[in-house]
């Protein structure tokens, strides 16, 4: 048995037994008491800065922050009394006093924790109007917009950036009334070590961080008769978009999503999953080449643009290990402007490619010089996050939940179940292993499910997965990391020679793309980074994969056709030109 001491206390008169070290807030939750909170997040370190979670403890002269006080024997806690409710309400009112009055036009309206607190605490007027902090809106970033006037200094962005992502790009600067959260020296996000993952957007209880809006650009393209406007959707969108329309998390929505996009007026709806299948075909060929003595090993996957930025800023020495494959999004964009344009007989400049992504870093990726046409125009013209496409669908008055199922368009709309898996941690690895197994043994593996690399790790995002995967008479040692803090720990072990892998999958965001910086805000009362929510989204992808006949990327007939009629050899010259890229060390260099 565990030798952790147990503590007896009462909360609101009810006796509770809790292990030593439990906080009052955690102990209260076991009784079904949800003490209001703002800066607290169970997966981040404690800040104790907002004071919203105060409770009364018998014998103590002052209210205590229940998130950061651990229980003691005989403790008597009162979470509710007229005085506590009044004090909490005063705290919330004071936070509001220093906050803009623009809920109606705020993107976070309805998903704002400060707004929710104000509502639930009966704050119906603003009594303490006074001087308010003033900061300029920082819109220069290609992915992330910073609105410091909406910041409540809870520090969740600072903590998620440091503790989950291992970047530490954000810090509170200055002091007192003038405190502001910015990158070093108050620099813009693009000048900083920011890798554009957008987890600060997710972690923020208000709207101090937002994605750069591309919806206006897409609306304009849709209204332009000169353009053929095509759209592609990333694997994880179908697993999360339903949440924006009241469907339970984990509802697969592929068909309804396609119908909704067609109704918005897109001329063709393509599947990024096909780009994922292409990635697998190219990447597994690359892996086999590296395994066959070409090195260097381990090979690192390259689909996640946040991870690629991280590699270039924090681990440039490992660049030769990264697969040279472009991301599925950019592969599909490249083919749309070449293969598809040729098939259609239209000039590529008349094709407008909008990509729906779970990711704000894709907005950065599309602007990289490496992913542009010879004339300098980007291969991808706009990147919409899941949240942005939800606004657009709502704005159009589409009853999403009751839509009929639609089908993706040819020739870039057929995808395998392996492609769907790209949306979750372990998915790129599983898809690679399926195809690599076929290539190495000459036949499909008996079970296509590689359970060793599946699953969202919970808790404080500690750890990564590693597994020995038997393929024929050989064993591949593989690693899977999501959340860059995990990736950092894994890569340090590789660099120090303590671990040896053949291939490592890295996705920047917790849980992979399903937990991306552009995914729907969790419903009111639920928390971001919640492993349960991410598991539900992942289960939708596993369901979609299991329900498909085509589950091996290299068997995708559309992919085969692309190679036979357009690209030529796998890994050949044309494939290299269109489907591969290069990386370089970038400044400012991150401190690991």
């Amino acid at each position, binding site marked *: 048995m565990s030798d952790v001491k147990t503590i007896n206390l009462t909360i609101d008169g009810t006796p509770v037994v809790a292990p030593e070290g439990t906080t009052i807030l955690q102990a209260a939750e076991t009784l079904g008491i949800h003490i209001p909170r703002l800066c607290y997040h169970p997966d981040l370190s404690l800040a104790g800065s907002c004071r919203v979670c105060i409770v009364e403890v018998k014998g103590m002269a002052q209210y205590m922050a229940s998130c950061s006080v651990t229980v003691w024997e005989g403790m008597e806690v009162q979470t509710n009394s007229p005085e506590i409710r009044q004090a909490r309400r005063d705290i919330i009112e004071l936070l509001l006093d220093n906050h803009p009055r623009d809920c109606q036009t705020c993107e976070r309206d309805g998903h704002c924790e400060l707004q929710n607190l104000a509502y639930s605490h009966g704050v119906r007027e603003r009594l303490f109007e006074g001087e308010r902090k003033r900061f300029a809106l920082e819109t220069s970033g290609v992915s992330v917009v910073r609105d410091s006037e909406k910041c409540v200094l809870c520090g969740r962005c600072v903590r998620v950036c*440091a503790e989950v992502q291992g970047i530490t790009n954000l810090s509170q600067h*200055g002091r007192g009334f003038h405190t502001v959260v*910015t*990158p070093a020296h108050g620099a813009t996000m693009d000048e900083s*070590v920011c890798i554009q993952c957008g987890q600060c957007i997710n972690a923020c209880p208000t709207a101090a961080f937002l994605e750069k809006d591309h919806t206006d650009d897409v609306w304009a393209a849709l209204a332009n008769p000169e353009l053929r406007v095509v759209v592609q959707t990333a694997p994880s969108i179908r697993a999360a978009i339903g949440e924006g329309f009241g469907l339970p998390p984990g509802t697969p929505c592929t068909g309804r999503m396609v119908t909704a996009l067609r109704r918005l007026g897109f001329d063709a709806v393509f599947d990024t999953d096909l780009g994922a299948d292409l990635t697998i075909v190219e990447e597994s060929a690359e892996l086999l080449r590296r395994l066959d003595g070409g090195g*260097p*090993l381990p090979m690192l996957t390259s689909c996640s643009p946040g991870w690629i930025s991280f590699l270039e800023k924090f681990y440039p*020495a490992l660049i030769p*290990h990264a697969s040279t494959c472009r991301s599925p999004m950019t592969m599909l964009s490249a083919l749309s402007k070449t293969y598809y344009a040729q098939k259609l007989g239209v000039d590529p400049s008349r094709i407008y490619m909008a990509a729906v992504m779970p990711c704000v870093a894709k907005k950065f990726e599309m602007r990289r010089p490496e992913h542009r046409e010879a004339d300098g125009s980007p291969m991808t013209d706009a990147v919409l996050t899941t949240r942005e496409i939800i606004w657009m669908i709502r704005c159009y008055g589409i009853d999403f939940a009751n839509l009929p199922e639609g089908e993706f368009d040819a020739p870039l709309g057929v995808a395998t179940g392996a492609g769907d898996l790209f949306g979750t941690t372990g998915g790129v690895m599983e898809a690679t292993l399926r195809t690599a197994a076929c290539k190495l043994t000459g036949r499909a593996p008996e079970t296509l499910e590689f359970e060793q690399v599946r699953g969202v790790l919970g808790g404080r995002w500690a750890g990564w997965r590693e597994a020995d995967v038997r393929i024929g008479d050989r064993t591949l040692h593989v690693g899977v990391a999501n959340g860059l803090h995990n990736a950092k720990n894994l890569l340090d072990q590789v660099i120090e020679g303590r671990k*040896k892998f053949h291939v490592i999958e890295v996705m920047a965001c917790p849980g992979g793309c399903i937990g991306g910086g552009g995914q729907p805000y969790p419903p009111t009362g639920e928390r971001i980074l919640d492993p349960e929510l991410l598991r539900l989204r992942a289960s939708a992808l596993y369901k979609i994969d299991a329900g498909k006949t085509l589950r091996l990327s290299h068997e995708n007939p559309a992919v085969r056709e692309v190679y036979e009629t357009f690209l030529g050899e796998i890994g050949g010259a044309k494939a290299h030109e269109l489907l591969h890229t290069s990386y370089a060390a970038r400044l400012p260099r991150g401190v690991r």
Partner: protein
Amino acid sequence: MKFQDPQERNDAMKPPTTTDNWNEVKAAAEAALPAPIVEFIADCRRREHPESHLISVLHKVQGHFGYLSAEHMDAVAQLLQVPAAKVSGVATFYHFFRLRPRGRYVINVCLGTACYVKGADKLVAKLKDELGIDFGETTSDGMFSLEASRCLGTCGLAPVVMFNDDVHPRVTPDQVPVLLQQYLDRARKAPPAAP
């Protein structure tokens, strides 16, 4: 198809150094700081919890340059291996650290009780008006910085204003322009030595 054995893999694990920029980043950081401070940071790195020495490193950097520039802080971040956001967060939190160079003459107005009742507030108003700057700021020609202190311990001379180490007793607002002109003349006669 053959797989590499662990030893071979180990060799393959060693990346070519060409993609790494650490040597350049480190050289740039070392060039931004004087050698003794670079040495001090290296010494901190050999101790436990090197990051806990951040404030003493920043003190030394400010002691040398008179202020902390973004370049200095970035150099400290790289050499001490503390994220730059933390370095600038610390530097902006403490009033002692200055982020801009100070003027050639630092004007320190005593705002202690005795000086205050003897009209230091009027001196401040006049200084701000003449210089066009607030406390903590420096004139655009880099000549004067304006600062305040609470009691210089010479209450008998109130109100007191210091220009660098020179103490000026019983200053009246009328004398402010005269004093400023004196220092401008002095600066013109003795241009600052080249750094």
